[in-house]
C-alpha cells in the first residue's frame, strides 16, 4: 500500500490528491471497485479492515500454532479450489471451504466424534462429495486427533474411497465369478475402449468414472454393470455404446 515505486504518474498530476497515501491509477481502480461491491466509503472500508485486524490480534490468531495452521488451511483451500476447477478467487475459496468444513463437522458430530467410527465418517464424506478432499481429511484428523498417516492408510486401503474427484457418473462393472463365466472380461474391455480410460480413472471431460466391483450380488443377471444407481443386466458387449449414450 505504501509502495513508492508505483507512483510514477505523480509528476504529471502534481500534488493534487493526497489522501493518507499517494495512489496511482491502478490502485484507484481497485479502490473504486472495492467501494462499489461493498457499498462502503474508503474510510468505512478502512475501519472495517481495522476492526477485523483488531479481532485477529486480540484473539491471538497471529500466534503459532494457530497462525501456522491457518496458513496451512489457506494453502489447501487454494489447492482445493484449483482441483475442482471452480473458483479462482481466494476469498471465495476460503468461504467455500469454511462451508465444507462445517458439513464435515456435522458428519463428525453425527458419529459423536467417536474415533472408532473413522471409517463410517469417511464413508459419509465420500458419499457427500463423491471423493475425499484433502481438507476434509485434515479436518477429521484435527477433530478426532488421529494422525493423517492413519487416515490415509484407511482411505487408501478400502475400495470405496477415492482421493481424486470422480466423474458425474460412476460406472461399476461387476467382475464377480458368475459374471466372469458369463463374459464380464469382454464387457469390461469394451467399456474401457468406449471410454478410453482404465478402471479407476475418470474421463477428461469428468463425465464418467470407471471402476470394477467384486460382486454386486445380482449373479442371476450377469454379466452386469451399474451406472450410478441404475442396474443393467444380461448385457451383450454390443449394449455398451447404447447405455453410455443415455448419459450426458
Amino acid at each position: 500500500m505504501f509502495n513508492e515505486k508505483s507512483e510514477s504518474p505523480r509528476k504529471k498530476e502534481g500534488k493534487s490528491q493526497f489522501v493518507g497515501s499517494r495512489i496511482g491509477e491502478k490502485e484507484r481502480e481497485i479502490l473504486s471497485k472495492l467501494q462499489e461491491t461493498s457499498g462502503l466509503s474508503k474510510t468505512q472500508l478502512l475501519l472495517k479492515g481495522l476492526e477485523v485486524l483488531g479481532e485477529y490480534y486480540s484473539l491471538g490468531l497471529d500466534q503459532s500454532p494457530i497462525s501456522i495452521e491457518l496458513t496451512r488451511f489457506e494453502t489447501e483451500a487454494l489447492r482445493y479450489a484449483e482441483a475442482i476447477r471452480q473458483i479462482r478467487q481466494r476469498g471465495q475459496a476460503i468461504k467455500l471451504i469454511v462451508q465444507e468444513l462445517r458439513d464435515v463437522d456435522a458428519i463428525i458430530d453425527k458419529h459423536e466424534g467417536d474415533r472408532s467410527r473413522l471409517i463410517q465418517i469417511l464413508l459419509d464424506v465420500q458419499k457427500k462429495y463423491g471423493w475425499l478432499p484433502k481438507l476434509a481429511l485434515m479436518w477429521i484428523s484435527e477433530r478426532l486427533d488421529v494422525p493423517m498417516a492413519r487416515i490415509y492408510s484407511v482411505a487408501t486401503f478400502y475400495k470405496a474411497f477415492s482421493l481424486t474427484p470422480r466423474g458425474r457418473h460412476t460406472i461399476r462393472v461387476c467382475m464377480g465369478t458368475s459374471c466372469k463365466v458369463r463374459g464380464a472380461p469382454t464387457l469390461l474391455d469394451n467399456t474401457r475402449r468406449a471410454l478410453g480410460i482404465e478402471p479407476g480413472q475418470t474421463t477428461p471431460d469428468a463425465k464418467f468414472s470407471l471402476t470394477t466391483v467384486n460382486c454386486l450380488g445380482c449373479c442371476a443377471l450377469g454379466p452386469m454393470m451399474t451406472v450410478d444407481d441404475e442396474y443393467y443386466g444380461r448385457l451383450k458387449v454390443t449394449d455398451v455404446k447404447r447405455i453410455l449414450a443415455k448419459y450426458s
Partner: protein
Amino acid sequence: MAKIKYVSSPEDLERLRREIIAKREPSKPCITVCVSTGCAAQGSRRVVEAFRAELEKQGLKDKVEIKETGCVGFCEQGPRVTVYPQEIYYFKVKPEDIPEIVSKTVLKKQIVERLLYKDSITGRTAQKLEEIPFYKYQLRLLLENNTKIDPKNIEDYIAVGGYSALAKALFEMTPEQIIEEVKKSNLRGRGGGGFPTGIKWETTRNAPGEPKYVIVNCDQGDPGAFMDRTVMEGNPHSVLEGLIIGGYAIGAHQGFVYVREEYPIAAENISIAIKQAEEYGLLGENIMGSSFSFNVKVHRGAGAFVSGESSALMTAIEGKVGEPRPKYIHTAIKGIWDKPSCLNNTKTWATIPLIILKGAEWFRSIGTKGSSGTMIFSLVGKVNNTGLVEVPMGITLRDLIFKIGGGIRGGKKFKAVQTGGPSGGFIPEQYLDTPVDFDELTKLGSMMGSGGMIVMDEDTCMVDMARYFIDFLLEESCGKCVPCREGLKALSKILNDICEGKGKDGDIETVRDVAEVMRDASLCALGRTAANPVLTSLKYFRDEWEQHIKFKRCPSKACKALISYYIDPEKCQACTLCLRECPAGAIQGGKDQVHWIEQEKCIKCGTCYEACNFAAVKKLSGEPIPPTLKGVKPIRKKVVR
C-alpha cells in the same frame, strides 16, 4: 393405546401379536412384490409404482394391501409378484401387466396364465412355489418368511411368530441352557469355516474380561454369493433376534452388525429394524421387562474382501485398517479392543431363533450327521435356473445342479462346479454324487465357504478360472504377511504367462511348490486357502494346463491370447452386422460379399462373435486359420432365428 406397543413382558408380546393378527383380515387381498437387489435391478420398483397407481385409479387403495418384501431366491425370473390370499406367484412381471393382474386376479380371482412360471422343458405352468422344480427340493427355513413380511415393518415379523424365541430365551432359559441347546443342535458356522457355534459361544462366555461383544458378519465379499444380503434385506429381524439371544447367552451388552458397503439396502433395513425393536422395547434397556439390556450398532464396510475375516473385521470395527492379525489367541477370547468377541455369520444368527423355538432335536433331524440344518446356496453361472436355494445339508451336487438348477444353459456340457468362493476349489463331474456338507467338500479339496456355487460349462477354461481367483486375491490380499503377498504375485505371474501362451516346462511344479508354502505359512485363512482353486484345477484338469503350456492351445477357447476369430464363409450371410459393430474395423467385405477378418487388426474383443445371428463367427485355438476368401458371394440360407 399407544402404550401397548411397548413390550414390557412376554404376555405383552403375545397380546401385541394377537392384536396385529386381529387387525388383519385374512381374506383381504394383499400383493407382495420383491424389491431386493436382484428384482429391483429388473425394474420391480416400477412394478410397485404401477400397482399403486392402478389401485388408486380403480378406487381400491384401502381394499388391497401392497407390500414390498424380500427375495425368494429365483432372481432369474424376476421381478416376482405374489397375490394373497390365493398365494399365486407371478414371475417376470412388467408394469404393463399390472392392470390385468388387478382386474383379473385381485378382483375376479382368476389367473393370468402367461405370467405364471412355465417350465422350459415340460411346458407346464405352476401357481404355487412347491410346484416349480426349482423349489420342489428345497427346504426353506431362513428364506420362508421373505415373501410374507415387509422387512421395514416389525409388526409383520411379530405376526409370523417373531421374537417369541427371545421371550422364551429370556424368561424360560438360563444362558447356560441356551448354550447347551445350541451345542446339542450341532449348528456349525455358516460363514464357511463350519466351526461349532455352541463351542464358540461358550469360549467367549467363559473368557475373562468385560465387556464382551457379539458381532454379525454380513461382509459377504465372496464373488458369486449373496445369501447374507438376502437374509439381511428380507428378514433383518430374524438376525437381530438371534443376536440378542446370543448376547444374553454370552453375557454381552453390545452387538455390532458389519454390513458390506455394496449392500446399501441391507444396511438400511437392519438400521430400521434396530430402531423399531428399540421402540417396541425388544432392544435397549431391560428388554421385555427383564433385567437384560443390549444395544446394537451398524458398521458399514468400505469395500475390502479381507475385512470379512474375523480378526480383520474386528480391527475394522475399531476404526482401523481392516487387516487380519495373528490368532495365537482366538478372537473369541481377545477380539475387539482385546475383549472377548463372538463373531458369527448372518445365517448362523438367523438360525438361532429357530433352534430355541423348535429345539435342538428338531434341528438335528435335518441334514447329515456331521452338519445339521439347512444351507443356502447361490446357484449361479452357466446353469438354467439361477438364484438362491435353501436345501438340507447332504443333498448331492447332481440334485442341486440338475434337479433344482435345471441343468446347463444352452444344452452344453457340464465341466465343473466351484464352491466356497476364492478360497474354495473346483469339483469335476466324477464327484457330482457327493453329498454336500462341510466335511465332504473339504475332502475334495474345496470347502463349503459361504455357499457360493458357480457352475461352469465346457466353454470355461479352468486355467483361466484359476488365474481369475488368484488375481482377485492378489488385489484383495492386505500384504501384511510375506507368503500370501509374494506367493500370490508369483502365482499370478506364472498363470498369466500360461494364459498368454508363454507357459514353459516346470511351471506346474513351481505353482505347486508356491501353493504349498502359502498354505503352510500364511497369517490368515485368505492366504492359507488361496491356493485351493489352483490346486484343484491342477488336480482335476491337468490336461488343460498341459495343452496351454505345450501346445499353446486353450481347449475351451477362452484365453484371449490363444484364440483367433474366423468367419466361416459357408455360413456368413454378408449381413454386415459384425462389420458395423467391430470396434477395430478389422472386418472386411460388404453387401453380397462374404466377410473376413484381418487378423493383424483384430483385437479379439468378441463383439462379432456375439453380434452374428448365423453362428458364422468361430473361435479357433491351436489350429491354423483357413485362408481368407475375398469377394465370394454368400450361400443364402433361411434365417433360423
